[in-house]
């Protein structure tokens, strides 16, 4: 009687549970407040001192702004506006604002506040967790990357030539508020900086040069109107490719039955470096390879994989790419997948491919509490190749494919005391859907997270997904298959027993 009852329950479960999935925490990006075109943030703050560090060692600009902010209003204020020129606004990646003095307290909530077209400036609003009292100060640490901000000059070079990049910015850091003093430090990948703008904004040499570090400022800008810009362009040698993933689709498939976490990543890669002036010459490339000379072409990518990763594959649209090398992990070291595109990817060239591997599920999954049906899955949000020249991702779509029948899905990104490279939760779009595969009846619950403008700074970020998954959901598939096969056999037997002959009996 008992097994029969369980069978009935399970079958009912098959039918009913489709309606009972609760779309918990489905945080679709809330409609952004659209500000009028002539919007000006209320002048309630003052930047007492501002230091901007621009790091140009990678294929994108990484800026860190440390600013001492003082409330000059009579009321306590909590909304600090960050202004960006409109053309940069969409390329700001991994924006994070913290209290510089108490970084372990976590990031502040940041919201994009778009200004109606046409406007030269767009804003992010930083919501301070506690309103800043009148005439008191706070030190903000603002960090972000600017994607596609480096442009090769000359735009096309000979295959064996060295590549130079230009970076343009304003000597006055764009800010919505009055700034007392400010300076900008630039860190170049090498000391070879043939061209840079000199200014007369301060007495003495500007910029000051020290090795590969150039400093613009400090400027006394108390009398300068907020929003004034003074264009500066630097041109420097960068012998590495500018690796850009126009799209990364990353699938994490959780299988409770198999105890397996399968990862597949699909990349659409492009090199944004200098294009080839003439066409590709194999002779020159062979020579360059032989001499190991630096090149702006993507020769090889190195991808450290989690310990215990097995069965890696590297394929593209037309099959396996044989030029890959996998070093499995030994001891505590990470496994390493070294793979070469089919051809060297020069500036302006594309290469799309897919990578995948499997991991044991146990290190990633655990029950939220023993005895419950609730699980917590902790997986890397982004992995990606680890290259000295860095990687920028224009769009990342992460799909976490949970087992069939998982419900009450929630997620959060793990915050540490330092930046994890991800933007704040409001800028991660999420949705739940269902995906049918491998004899599924209802389809698996899929959590899709989409982020625009990321860099490989987010490599170590973690994502925690919690969900409920009952025992009966787990045995739904064996029961379905058994029932299916049984009905096939029964049908075959029944059909076999029908006599359709027209002979006399």
């Amino acid at each position: 009687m008992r097994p029969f009852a369980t069978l009935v329950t399970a079958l009912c479960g098959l039918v009913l549970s489709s309606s009972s999935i609760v779309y918990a925490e489905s945080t679709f990006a809330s409609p952004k407040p659209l500000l009028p075109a002539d919007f000006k943030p209320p002048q309630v703050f003052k930047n007492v001192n501002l230091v901007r560090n621009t790091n140009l060692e990678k294929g994108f600009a990484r800026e860190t702004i440390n600013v001492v902010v003082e409330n000059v209003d009579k009321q306590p204020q909590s909304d600090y506006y960050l202004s960006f020129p409109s053309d940069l606004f969409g390329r700001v990646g991994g924006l994070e604002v913290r209290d510089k003095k108490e970084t372990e307290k976590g990031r502040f909530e940041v919201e994009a506040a778009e200004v109606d077209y046409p406007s030269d400036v767009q804003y992010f609003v930083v919501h301070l967790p506690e309103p800043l009292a009148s005439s008191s100060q706070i030190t903000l640490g603002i960090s972000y990357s600017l994607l596609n901000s480096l442009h090769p000059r000359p735009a096309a070079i000979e295959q064996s030539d060295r590549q130079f990049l230009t970076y343009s910015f304003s000597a006055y850091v764009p800010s919505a508020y009055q700034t007392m003093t400010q300076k900008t430090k630039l860190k170049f990948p090498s000391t070879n900086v043939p061209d840079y703008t000199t200014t007369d904004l301060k007495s003495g040499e500007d910029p000051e040069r020290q090795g590969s570090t150039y400093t613009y400022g400090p400027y006394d800008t108390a009398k300068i109107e907020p929003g004034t810009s003074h264009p500066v362009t630097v041109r420097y040698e960068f012998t590495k490719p500018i690796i850009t993933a126009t799209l990364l689709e990353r699938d994490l498939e959780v299988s409770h039955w198999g105890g397996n976490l399968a990862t597949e990543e699909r990349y659409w890669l492009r090199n944004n470096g200098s294009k080839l002036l003439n066409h590709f010459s194999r002779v020159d490339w062979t020579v360059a390879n032989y001499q190991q000379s630096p090149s702006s072409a993507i020769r090889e990518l190195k991808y450290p994989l989690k310990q215990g990763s097995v069965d890696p594959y590297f394929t593209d649209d037309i099959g396996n790419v044989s030029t890959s090398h996998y070093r499995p992990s030994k001891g505590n070291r990470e496994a390493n997948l070294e793979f070469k595109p089919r051809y060297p990817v020069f500036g302006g060239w594309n290469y799309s491919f897919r990578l995948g591997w499997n991991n044991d599920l146990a290190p990633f999954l655990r029950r939220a509490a023993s005895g419950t049906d609730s699980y917590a899955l902790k997986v890397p949000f982004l992995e990606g190749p680890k290259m000295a020249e860095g990687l920028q991702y224009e769009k990342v779509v992460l799909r976490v494919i949970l087992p069939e029948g998982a419900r009450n899905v929630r997620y959060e990104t793990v915050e540490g005391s330092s930046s994890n490279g991800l933007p704040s939760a409001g800028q991660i779009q999420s949705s739940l859907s269902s995906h049918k595969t491998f004899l599924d009846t209802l389809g698996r619950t899929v959590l899709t997270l989409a982020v625009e403008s990321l860099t490989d700074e987010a490599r170590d970020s973690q994502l925690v997904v919690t969900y409920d998954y009952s025992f009966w959901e787990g045995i739904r598939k064996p029961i379905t298959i058994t029932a299916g096969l049984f009905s096939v056999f029964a049908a075959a037997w029944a059909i076999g027993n029908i006599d359709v002959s027209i002979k006399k009996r």
Partner: protein
Amino acid sequence: MAESSVDVLLKGGSGRSARGLLRIIILVTIAAAAVSSRLFSVIRFESIIHEFDPWFNFRATKYLVQNGFYEFWDWFDDRTWHPLGRVTGGTLYPGLMVTSGVIYHVLRFLTIPVDIRNICVLLAPGFSGLTALAMYLLTNEMSSSPSAGLLAAAFMGITPGYISRSVAGSYDNEAIAIFLLVFTFFLWIKAVKIGSIMWGALTALFYGYMVSAWGGYVFITNLIPLHVFVLLCMGRYSSRLYISYTTWYALGTLASMQIPFVGFLPIRNSDHMSALGVFGLLQLVAFAEFVRGFIPGKQFQRLLTASIILTSGLAFVGLVVLTMSGVIAPWSGRFYSLWDTGYAKIHIPIIASVSEHQPTAWPSFFFDLNFLIWLFPAGVYICFRDLKDEHVFVIIYAVLSSYFAGVMVRLMLTLTPIVCVAAALVLSYILDIYLKASPGPVTRGRSNEDPSDGLRSARNPEVGISSYFSKAVTTSALIVYLLMFVAHCTWVTSNAYSSPSVVLASRMPDGSQFIIDDYREAYYWLRQNTPANAKIMSWWDYGYQIGGMADRPTLVDNNTWNNTHIATVGKAMSSREEVSYPILRQHDVDYVLVVFGGLLGYSGDDINKFLWMVRIAEGIWPDEVKERDFFTPKGEYRVDDQATPTMRNSLMYKTSYYNFNKLFPMGQATDRVRGARLPAESPQLSTLEEAFTSENWIIRIYKVKDLDNFGRDHNSAVAFDRGNKRKKATKKKGARVLRSE
């Protein structure tokens, strides 16, 4: 004890079911062996589509899966044969693609996520398992011996003659067609034996499937009528024959006409006329048989003679008139080349240029069939001993297909099934004689009870071999042969037939495998870094691959439906740049792709195929392209500094060797395929520029230059860029005139 338990298993009622079970297990094992022996390439390389034609089938299958059946049926492909396009849906045999499409959708329905590529790659091995089963059924109809069918199935499963076209990845029409061929023949034999409409209709059904799958269906269309005709001539008319043939012909012809590519051919093409003729003849014979029941013998003879002469005369005259008037198409060129092996070489070089259309070399019979080939005549002889209707079929099939296999390498495929049947008949016959235990007590007891008194030998007819020694010798010899056959098949499959030819493998000095993946490197470069509708010109061999892997429009491909277009490409390749460039411009060519094996010693490159391009071009422009000009006065085909000026100025030569000497020290450039020391100077290109060369130089891609910005011709533009001083004399003085060309 063991023996007795085996006895229990093999005797009586339970024995029968035990034997049936054993038979099923053996068959399943054979099918598994057939499948797994075809997986060498998947294990060694990867799950990849092989060679040339399969790439088209794969592309068409993807189109079918993505766009649905009706779109596929109406598919006009503007990405091939630029600028003509190809009515692909109406000019292909859809059976293969539809089969994979159905499998794909069934799997999707069960939500099993199988990539369409994997279905395509594994279709041929899967169907070869089915072929082994069909072979078992067919052979079982021929022999009463229990072992014949199993032997035939095993032979069919692993014989290289069939494996050559059905390894994993060889996604071609033959992959399913051989199964359909064998199974249709089985159904036909069954129909003739029983005389049932159902079996005849089933034959027609599978014949229709076969028509949809492979152009080789004409073989069935002619073999079955021939079988019937021979039976009629042997005086073996029966109502069974009448029922099965008329059912098959009527339904089968209707079924075959459903395929757009076949259309009205069954009633308009000479290739199909024998089936129609035999259909008519059968009606006459049936009528005559009917009349004979009413009329006395002598009058009947006279009537019969008169009517036969009259009708055959009428039919012949009708055929001639219809052929002359063009209602019935005359024989096709490919058909003529079956009778005259020299025909293609003279009239249709494009057919002759394909290696699989060459006459078969003798050793390849042994290579593909091993010891089956010498068992084959014995098997045919055995059929003569016991000449039933089905044995007549085997004999006709054997005679016809041995001829065809001798004419064309490719048709070895149609020979293989009948060789397996014949060889299995012989082997089972021998095994039955030599393996049977000594005459059982049952026989002896019965002969003892025989009351008639006669000679002892006659009374007790002990037919068979009783000496254990001769039994042992013969069977062990056979077993050795069989084992050698298996070893040979494995060796041949592994070494000769399991290379994808898209990916090449060689060995590193330390013995590890080194993959040469130049084709895909270059194709993928094209796919990723050229505009989506950049036209690629290459020799037609690579058309399907470019379409499949690079996803770019091509000028010509392996379909070869338009000889003139191919000749145009041949002309562009074999002419000087000044002649080629206008051709390239007229055809919107953006890139020229050539295959060059000189660095690696890869012999299947374009320079080695070059003479065919010249010949095909010469067929259309005999005044402009001459094969003789490519040979030195001594009649040698050379690429070094002795090469003729025509050769050295041809686009193919230039694109192949452009900048090749830079890889070598001064004057040391060597072509490893032809073993020739190349001239010290690299050929100069003025209208093309090198765009991409793959790692081992196998694929070289050139971009066709745009018209010069200053209106100069490319030659002088290049000379100017190089800094050559322009001769003053060439500068024309005087009033400017409008060029009129």
